[in-house]
């Protein structure tokens, strides 16, 4: 099934990947880590990076659905 996924990057990760978002339209995307690998071929996900789907924290094996927004970012440092 053709899926459309918006991918977002923040903070130091945004700088290291060199962009703030991707719009992926692909088949065969099933989990969060699949989304990373498709959007960043040849670049493994740094160890400490957190992930969210539709603005909720998730594990990397979390399923994704058509229309989801998937975000990757480093540990948070607010407050």
């Amino acid at each position, binding site marked *: 099934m053709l899926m459309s996924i918006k991918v*977002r990057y*923040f*903070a*130091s990760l945004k700088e290291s990947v060199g962009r703030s978002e991707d719009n992926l339209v692909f088949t065969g995307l099933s989990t969060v880590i699949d989304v990373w690998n498709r959007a960043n071929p040849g670049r493994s996900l740094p160890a400490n990076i957190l992930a*969210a789907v539709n*603005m*909720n*924290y998730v594990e990397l094996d979390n399923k994704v659905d058509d229309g989801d927004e998937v*975000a990757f*970012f*480093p*540990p*948070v*440092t*607010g*407050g």
Partner: protein
Amino acid sequence: MAIKICADVFDPYVEIQDYQNENPGNSGAVGASSIFIGTMRDFNEGDAVKGMTLEYYPGMTEKQLAKIIAEAQQQWPVIDTLVVHRVGDILPGHAIVLVAVWTSHRGDAFDACRFIIDALKSKAPFWKKELLTSEDERWVVANTDGYNRG
């Protein structure tokens, strides 16, 4: 309950006063107000810092803050909560965050306020980038446990 993300300088004391004036119905039941204000230091990890930029994830930040406040409301009998957080360019001395919790008794106010600021520090998607006086820039990698262990 209110959550505010401010792109400009805010005065936490004015925010508290305004919020209390806008919510006069709370005043009879409230016996305790616990306030945490975080301000920007001019030093970090042994270096002089002259500015900071705070990035956030619009939408997710508010969603996570609302979730944190809901968790506090489940654990303590909280009457009202106000959370204000700065984003954008910040200078030393400026307020970064305000957490205000109103309850009937002080223990609940202290505990809920601490829970909210500690959860915000570990779960709310904000990121700080420091500008040092040496003109170097660096991302803050992790929040500390909140004590001066120096």
